[in-house]
């Protein structure tokens, strides 16, 4: 009798077992995603805060800052937008520059895609819409020991980072009303310092020091040369394409 009973229940049972496999040790929950986001919160709070100050001093209203942090949600792009709006650049040149700088998301999104194969395109759209350098960095570290990343965990991570960013921008915007020049306070250095931190953390986590530092140096040289000889917005793209290709070829040889 008993095996038959199990047989009858097998669809639900199978699903249960699969769920159990996807949730080992309660490690892949939404709440765990929130927790795994915590170590990055203060760093991005300070960067979001600096972005809010810079946006405010560039002449954006609080409502505009709320809008940009909610629907654009990209640190480097927001600093660039603020700078170019203050400089009186045309709408089309601002949008094209941001497109080029944010093309790197193509590569982040592609790099993380193998871990979300278990989701349909619509659910992948939701994962990708809040993907940032920060959440990518945390997720890639999480992926080191597994073949897939939990959807709930990723939403926990993404949404926490998103809310933190919005609040930091608004706080910076309010304080920006009393700061006339953010440069005086070194706040314009928040963005390069953030990239320095992310770069060092990524290299140290991968433990391929010689190879990664070589790739980094090549990227620096290409980025500077292309920026000066051609255009700064192409510099990042050219550096990414050339340096990554060289890194791949060197690793293949070894």
């Amino acid at each position, binding site marked *: 009798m008993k095996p038959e009973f199990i047989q009858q229940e097998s669809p639900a049972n199978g699903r249960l077992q699969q769920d159990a496999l996807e949730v080992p040790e309660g490690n892949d929950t939404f709440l765990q995603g929130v927790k795994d986001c915590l170590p*990055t919160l*203060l760093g*991005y709070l*300070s*960067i979001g805060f*600096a972005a809010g100050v810079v946006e405010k001093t560039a002449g*954006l*209203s609080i409502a505009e800052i709320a809008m*940009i942090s909610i629907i*654009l949600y990209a640190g480097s792009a927001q600093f660039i*937008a603020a700078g170019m*709006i203050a400089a009186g650049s045309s*709408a089309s040149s*601002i949008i094209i520059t*941001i*497109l080029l700088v*944010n093309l790197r*998301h*193509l*590569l*982040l*999104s*592609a790099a993380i895609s*193998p871990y979300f*194969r278990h*989701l349909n395109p619509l659910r*992948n*759209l939701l994962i*990708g*819409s809040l*993907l940032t*350098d920060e959440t990518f960095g945390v997720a*890639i570290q999480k992926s080191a020991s597994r073949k897939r990343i939990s959807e709930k965990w990723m939403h926990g991570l993404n949404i926490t980072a998103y809310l933190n960013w919005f609040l930091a921008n608004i706080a910076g915007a309010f304080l920006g009303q009393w700061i006339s020049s953010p440069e005086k*306070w*070194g*706040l314009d*250095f*928040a*963005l*390069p*310092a*953030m990239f*320095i*931190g*992310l770069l*060092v953390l990524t290299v*140290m986590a991968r433990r391929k020091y010689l190879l990664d530092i070589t*790739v*980094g140096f*090549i990227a620096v040289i290409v*980025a*500077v040369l292309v*920026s*000066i000889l051609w255009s*700064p917005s192409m510099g*990042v793209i050219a*550096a990414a394409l050339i*340096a990554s*290709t060289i*890194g791949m070829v060197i690793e293949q040889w070894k």
Partner: protein
Amino acid sequence: MEIRLEIFFIILGAALVTFIPRVLPLMLLSRISIPDWGMRWLSFVPIAVMAALVAQELFVTDGRFTGLSTNVELIAALPSFWVAVKTRSLLGTVVTGILALMLLRLLF
């Protein structure tokens, strides 16, 4: 507390061109498989992009090479790198960079 029409369209356009590269690979590449060399290539991309962004911030101003002798950002980058390696803390790195540059601008 208002949103100007031109700013509205700038933000909307910027958001759209940011959204598409974020979601497209996740939506498409989860359907097809990436070969080994492709994954190896992708693994270098974040490092190359971040190094390029740092280099641009430190060495390029308005499309020109920033002089080394007057480059306070470059000097401020050194303690930032050091703190990043020693503490592995993003916050520590950012705060160090901001404080270092603030002090340097105060002095020079």
